[in-house]
């Protein structure tokens, strides 16, 4: 690692502070609403990439883990409300609970399905999403199919409107997610993940405990997704199973890393920021259906033409430019008067 983690964190926090400050300057809370969604996708993409990009196991059930986090919050909300407890739980605690619940489910699902081929795992994640959705729809405590209302506090001290507080929380979570991904990438664990992606059989033969590593990846990935889902009920106010479990989360959390580049933490970040912003614009100006069409087309296009994503394109561009440069220097060196 060229930059050590504490330094990286400080840089991220500084950037984050600048982002937050600039957003306050805009003077319109809409920036925070839109920004929250983009940051949420940064977390979801980064989380997805830990299992998908690093290990090569495709998870179609992002929505399931996200919803687990959201519904944990709703359950706690109802619990507090029913028992007349004084304050709402602080967001970090809610996120932690969401993370733990999702992490446990991720571990459980992984335990059932990770011994099988990648394709079976992926199909199982689809199944999980539907099973969970069905369970939630039939669980009246959290509102069932009618949905659940969560009342958002008006203001937070120092920060202002509640949505700014949510934005800040998601910003911190995004920084944490990126830091974790980066830490994994450069660690022994990250190398292990890469061998699983490249050739799981050979990895086993060389002493890599592939099942254990895959379980770690699934758990971390699921936990982060759950943490991203925990504030969602407060953000949206009214939680409905159909939209919470939507495949839109799956397609986005897959498209963003694949478009940005799956080999490092930078890819999901780029993908989430670019695609997320694009979608916010498209939803407002055109329609949300066209929005999804664009994501689908971009996903298919990138996967065929630029399989290494934007990172890959940048690398290729830099390599070609270097080769051109070297070639040109040789030619120039033969020219009269040239300095070798």
């Amino acid at each position: 690692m060229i930059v050590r983690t504490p330094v990286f964190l400080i840089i991220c926090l500084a950037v984050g502070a600048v982002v937050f400050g600039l957003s306050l300057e805009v003077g319109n809370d809409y920036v925070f609403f839109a920004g929250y969604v983009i940051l949420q996708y940064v977390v979801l993409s980064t989380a997805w990439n830990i299992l998908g990009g690093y290990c090569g196991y495709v998870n179609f059930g992002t929505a399931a883990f996200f919803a687990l986090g959201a519904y944990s919050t709703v359950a706690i909300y109802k619990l507090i409300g029913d028992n007349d407890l004084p304050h709402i739980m602080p967001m970090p605690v809610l996120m932690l609970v969401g993370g733990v619940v999702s992490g446990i489910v991720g571990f459980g699902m992984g335990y059932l399905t990770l011994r099988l081929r990648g394709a079976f795992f992926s199909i199982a994640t689809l199944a999980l999403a539907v099973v969970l959705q069905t369970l939630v729809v039939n669980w009246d405590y959290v509102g069932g199919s009618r949905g659940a209302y969560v009342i958002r506090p008006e203001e937070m001290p120092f920060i202002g409107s509640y949505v700014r507080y949510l934005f800040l929380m998601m910003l911190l979570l995004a920084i944490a997610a990126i830091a974790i991904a980066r830490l994994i990438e450069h660690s022994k664990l990250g190398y292990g993940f890469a061998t699983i992606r490249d050739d799981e059989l050979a990895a086993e033969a060389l002493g890599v405990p592939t099942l254990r590593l895959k379980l770690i990846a699934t758990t971390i990935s699921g936990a982060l997704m759950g943490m991203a889902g925990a504030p969602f009920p407060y953000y949206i106010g009214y939680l409905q199973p159909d939209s919470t479990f939507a495949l839109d989360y799956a397609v986005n959390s897959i498209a963003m890393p694949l478009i940005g580049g799956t080999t490092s933490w930078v890819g999901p970040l780029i993908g989430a920021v670019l695609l997320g912003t694009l979608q916010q614009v498209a939803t407002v100006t055109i329609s949300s259906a066209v929005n999804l069409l664009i994501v689908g087309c971009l996903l298919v296009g990138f996967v065929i033409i630029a399989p290494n994503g934007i990172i890959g394109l940048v690398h290729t561009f830099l390599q070609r430019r270097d080769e051109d440069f070297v070639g040109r220097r040789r030619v120039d060196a033969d020219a009269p008067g040239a300095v070798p």
Partner: protein
Amino acid sequence: MIFSFDLLINAIVSGILIGGFYAAVTSGVSLAFGILDIVNIAHPAFIILGSYVAYIVNATFGLDPILTAIVVTPLFYALGAGIYQVYYVSFEKRGQESLRGLAFFFGLLFITEVSLVLYFGVDYRYVSAPYIGPTWHFGDVDLPLRMLVPCVVSLLLIATLQLILTRTFIGRAIMAVAQDQLALRLMAIDPIRIKRIAFGISIATASLAGAFLIIIQPVEPSVGRQYIGRVFAICVLGGLGSMPGAVIAAMLVGIVESLTSTFYGPSWAPAVSFGFLLLTLAVRPAGLMGR
């Protein structure tokens, strides 16, 4: 929960009938996933596409949906062949099927569904045909023709597929390509061409399955999503690549879903096949009649 024998019998019959249809739906996936090892999770989207094609022709010309589907089969075949070619060049050749290949099909699923929404909207569409209204009665048992006809034709389709796979040269080449590509090459048969044909057939079945679907129930673009898990659940349960296995598994899933829906309510039904899938994967990945 009111239990009556009447209800039970009808639930089971209903399950069998829909199971027949499920088998047709799964046959394409059984071919693609079971034999060619291609995880085409976009298959349900092509089925919905087939439903809409049947709908347009039926609404405009009044043509029978099943007839329409049969006529349109070559188009779907061409679509399948084209998609396989892209898939092969972009992913199989580079060894990238597991991550990017899957993402590719997922993207296709989305594009297809959203395009249909944009063009047709989210209203339910249905077809009209002489056998959609009436129901035959045998004592306490009801046999709605709109389910019986697709079921029977589905089973015919599967039988035809099985015949093709076991009796024709191309069919046997397809079965062979799953096991020994080298042997095929030595016989001067291009395995890629065989796979292309097989995948084309797989998507062609979607055209018929789509017609069956819209006869059985009204269709709107997101209906396909319910079928993703169902289709793979049946495929795995039946043993990958086995047509007879797919039929048995489809019937089983159909019956259990029907019973669940009748006695516990329809909101639990989606979880049935998915639950089946998770259980099968955890306990016996080779399925009931596994290879």
